[in-house]
């Protein structure tokens, strides 16, 4: 067992985030009601420090290096994802305090859980072996369960947390079982590279394939791909609004990071990708089903949170198109998925930030009709929300448009995916229809009752940053595309 302290420093951003989580947890003991919001700022500081550490690492990460017997890896993809998680955490920590205070459940543990969850996500992004993947996923998920149920007096919150926890536990069962099967059939391989080396032989036994798909099923649960999406609408609706944004963006991004990594390395062998039993086919079918169901179900929702929950399922479908494209050999698919996740994180956090902003203790204003007249009374917020909704719908000049454009461009490199792309754009039209329902309410209708939003300087600042970022990603996407990774043609 060799241990080199430099290995630790390669994971400094993750350590900072988790360490800051511990600090927040300790500080909570001494916090009073007035000073409690300072805990969120501690968390924000942690995120910023982690971002700085991440920036310092960027140059060295051009070459991927593995540590701890091939269990963890540092490369550009994991750092790009780390940055995405940090964005999600940072924005959640800015949006949450006013909301929590208004609804009367501000606890320091909440902020600590956001940080622990972020640490878990980073672990997933860096995981290059089964053990680390499991630890990462569990850390992230446990934090998400707790956050979902953190509004203890609210029945929906508890219900959502319960459903999320039960189904999540079930998924973890699949994950561990699958890992055991793969471990057994590959003769005790734990790291992805070791598994990949054994694949030509191990893939001859069906048991290995069972193991492979059990693992994938667990990950599909986490991204809420159809037909493993049942928990998502309830959990998303029940969770406190800032948590919903954090889950919909962060947890999803992390799970997709895990999927990309495991499919690319452990199961990247053409033996496992193509043919009838290959994962490419299955991902294609899941992508189609997810895009269709997510977007069609969203059409009928009256509750904005639930609407965005279904739309978030639809977005998982688009990202799966990118995953399928990666399997079929499209060079730009991975950067496209990474860019999509980054853009989606900004957009989703921003839109849930507005949802958290608009309500107050008496009246959460979660229905589409409650948004009537916002464009006249609060033009700036309405404009920001419009930018987010257009970005979700994939309308230029927003990040969401460029992300979809980039993703579909990657998918069109393989002729097998033409029909999927056409399906993707058609479901996008459907999605624009329901996103515009909110825009219609905001701009084209008269308000039903006076507005009393949960206003706070932090929320306003975060909304400005987010809206600006979404536009930046749409108008000058170049640098972010380049950071997502070099790609060369087939």
């Amino acid at each position, binding site marked *: 067992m060799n241990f080199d302290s430099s290995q630790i420093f390669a994971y400094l951003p993750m350590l900072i985030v988790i360490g800051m989580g511990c600090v927040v947890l300790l500080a909570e003991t001494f916090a009073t009601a007035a000073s409690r919001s300072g805990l969120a700022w501690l968390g924000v500081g942690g995120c910023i420090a982690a971002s700085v550490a991440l920036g310092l690492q960027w140059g060295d990460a051009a070459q991927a290096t593995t540590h701890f017997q091939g269990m963890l890896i540092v490369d550009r993809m994991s750092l790009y994802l780390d940055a995405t998680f940090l964005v999600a955490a940072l924005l959640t920590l800015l949006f949450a305090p006013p909301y929590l205070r208004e609804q009367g459940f501000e606890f320091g543990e909440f902020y600590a859980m956001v940080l622990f969850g972020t640490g878990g996500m980073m672990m997933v992004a860096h995981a290059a072996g089964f053990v680390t993947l499991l630890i990462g996923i569990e850390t992230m998920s446990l934090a998400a369960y707790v956050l979902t149920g953190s509004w203890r007096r609210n029945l929906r919150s508890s219900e959502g947390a319960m459903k999320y926890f039960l189904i999540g536990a079930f998924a973890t069962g699949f994950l561990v079982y699958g890992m055991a099967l793969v471990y057994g059939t590959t003769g005790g391989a734990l790291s992805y590279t070791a598994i990949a080396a054994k694949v030509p032989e191990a893939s001859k036994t069906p048991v290995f394939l069972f193991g492979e798909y059990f693992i994938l099923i667990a990950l599909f649960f986490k991204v809420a791909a159809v037909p493993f999406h049942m928990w998502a609408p309830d959990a998303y609706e029940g969770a406190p609004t800032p948590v919903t944004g954090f889950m919909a963006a962060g947890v999803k991004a992390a799970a997709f990071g895990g999927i990309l990594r495991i499919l690319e390395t452990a199961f990247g062998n053409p033996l496992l990708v193509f043919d009838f039993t290959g994962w490419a086919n299955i991902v294609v079918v899941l992508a189609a089903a997810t895009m269709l169901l997510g977007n069609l179900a969203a059409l009928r929702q009256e509750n904005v949170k639930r609407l965005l929950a279904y739309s978030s399922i639809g977005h998982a479908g688009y990202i799966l198109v990118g995953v399928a494209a990666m399997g079929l050999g499209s060079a730009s698919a991975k950067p496209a998925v990474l860019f999509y996740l980054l853009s989606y994180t900004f957009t989703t956090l921003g839109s849930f930030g507005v949802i958290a902003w608009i309500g107050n203790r008496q009246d959460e204003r979660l229905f589409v009709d409650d948004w009537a007249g916002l464009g006249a009374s609060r033009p700036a917020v309405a404009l920001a929300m419009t930018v987010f909704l257009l970005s979700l719908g994939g*309308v230029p000049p927003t990040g969401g448009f460029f992300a979809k*454009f980039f993703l579909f461009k990657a998918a069109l490199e393989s002729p097998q995916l*033409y029909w999927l792309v056409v399906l993707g754009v058609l479901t996008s039209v459907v999605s*624009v*229809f329901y996103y515009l329902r909110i825009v*219609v309410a905001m*701009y*084209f209708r008269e308000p039903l009752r006076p507005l009393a939003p949960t206003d706070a300087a932090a929320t306003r600042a975060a909304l400005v940053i987010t809206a600006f970022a979404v536009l930046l990603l749409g108008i000058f996407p170049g640098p972010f595309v380049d950071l997502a990774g070099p*790609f060369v*043609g087939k």
Partner: protein
Amino acid sequence: MGVLAWITLLPLAGAVLTMLVPREEEAIHRGIGLGTAIITFLASLFILSDFDASKAGFQLEVDKVWVESLGIHFHLGIDGISLWLVLLTTFLMPVTLLAPQAIGTRNVRVRDFVVAMLVLEAGMIGAFLALDMFVFYVFWELMLIPMYFIIGIWGGERRLYASIKFVIYTLVGSLLMLVAILYLYAQYHAATGAFSFDYVSLVRLSLPFEPQLLCFLAFALAFAIKVPLFPLHTWLPDAHVEAPTGGSVILAGVLLKFGTYGFLRFALPMFPLATEAMAPTIAVLAVIGIVFGALMAYVQDDAKKLVAYSSVSHMGLVVLGIFTLTQIGMQGAIFQMLAHGISTGGLFLGVGLLYDRRHTRNLADFGGLWKRIPVFSACFLVIVLASVGLPGLCGFVGEFLVLLGTFGAHNEWIRSGLAGGFLPLPRILTIVSASSVILSAMYLLTMMQRIFFGPLDKPENRDPHVRDIHGRERWVFGIIIVAALATGIYPQPILSRSEKSVSGLLSLFQARLKDAKANPEATPHIYPANP
């Protein structure tokens, strides 16, 4: 930065400036809006002076790297086809903003209206000038959002329905076009190893028949919805009737031209085989649209709906002109686009003014207005006659050239072997579409008669509120009439500047067609660059 980049970005700068002024200062907002539009128009006149009519290719190009790794460039350029459409855009926008009725009857949120109009202008100019398919698509969609808000916020009773219908129709077409653009990009990459969205590069790509047909259909759907070509026109009457006057003017005057412009710019040179195969079908649909739109216009009681259906009819003529695939027909189509922009823009402004005075658009509520508001009535008559196609006014030239081109297409089509089996087609189409001249006289003059002639027997029409045009309105209608007269009496400057580009496009199309037919089995390959 070249003049093209300036005129694209000027309206955006004006929009940002408008947003910075507090909400209450409505006069300042209107001032900034009008000022920006006028400056943009004056700047666009520089294009005219710098434009070299003897060249067929693109001029005054601007080319800046946007996203290097994906081969996206901010590439703008102008040729004889887009030149007049850009000028039409920059001309109509200040005229519209000058009209006091532009915002419609819901005279609220002036700032937002000005911002929407200016963003719309930037989108339109950018889309006409874009020579990079990505840039084209971005501007194409950028037009959609402000128009959606213009209909949705300042529109009439059923504005929600109309605005969402407009968006969904347009998006279905444009997103499939996006897929086709991405497909071309992938094919270009496969053939050359380079990443490029550049129009000038992608137009050199030669595809086999089947992919050409699919791409053509994807592009054509987007364009046919915009035109709108029968039977995809159903969004248009709704959108026009609900939109405020300014929205209708820009929608009919400029936005519809994107469909026909797209056919000329993209569909023809990029997919010659598919164009040849589809030309008779589209020509027939266009003629159906001409007659159907005219008949629908004739039975309308709502003046605005009447003008909207007349657009369906007149734009059908433009599509017909393009798909004759002859020099005269195409030049006629370009001229007709311009003429339709001026005359229909004028008609919508006129109907908007009538609505402002009388708060109704129902033809039965009018009658005898000439006695009450003679100056406006005379102005409106000139615009109506321009739209009907009276010689000496703008509508005549385009209509005449298109019909001439369609008739001449008979020989052209025999010579090039087009539409093999059914040769009398162009002549039949000419005869049927020539009826549009009579039909448009019928419905427009009937409208004229019901509004302005007859006895002044309705008490509401004698109301002192029914004032003749005054103030800025004089300018609006004066400018429109001068434009209609000038282009009608002396069309040569317009035709001569589009001539080279059209003949260049046509010879390119024919050369590609010949080459593709000579090697039907050829895999995707790249044609050499044009000399």
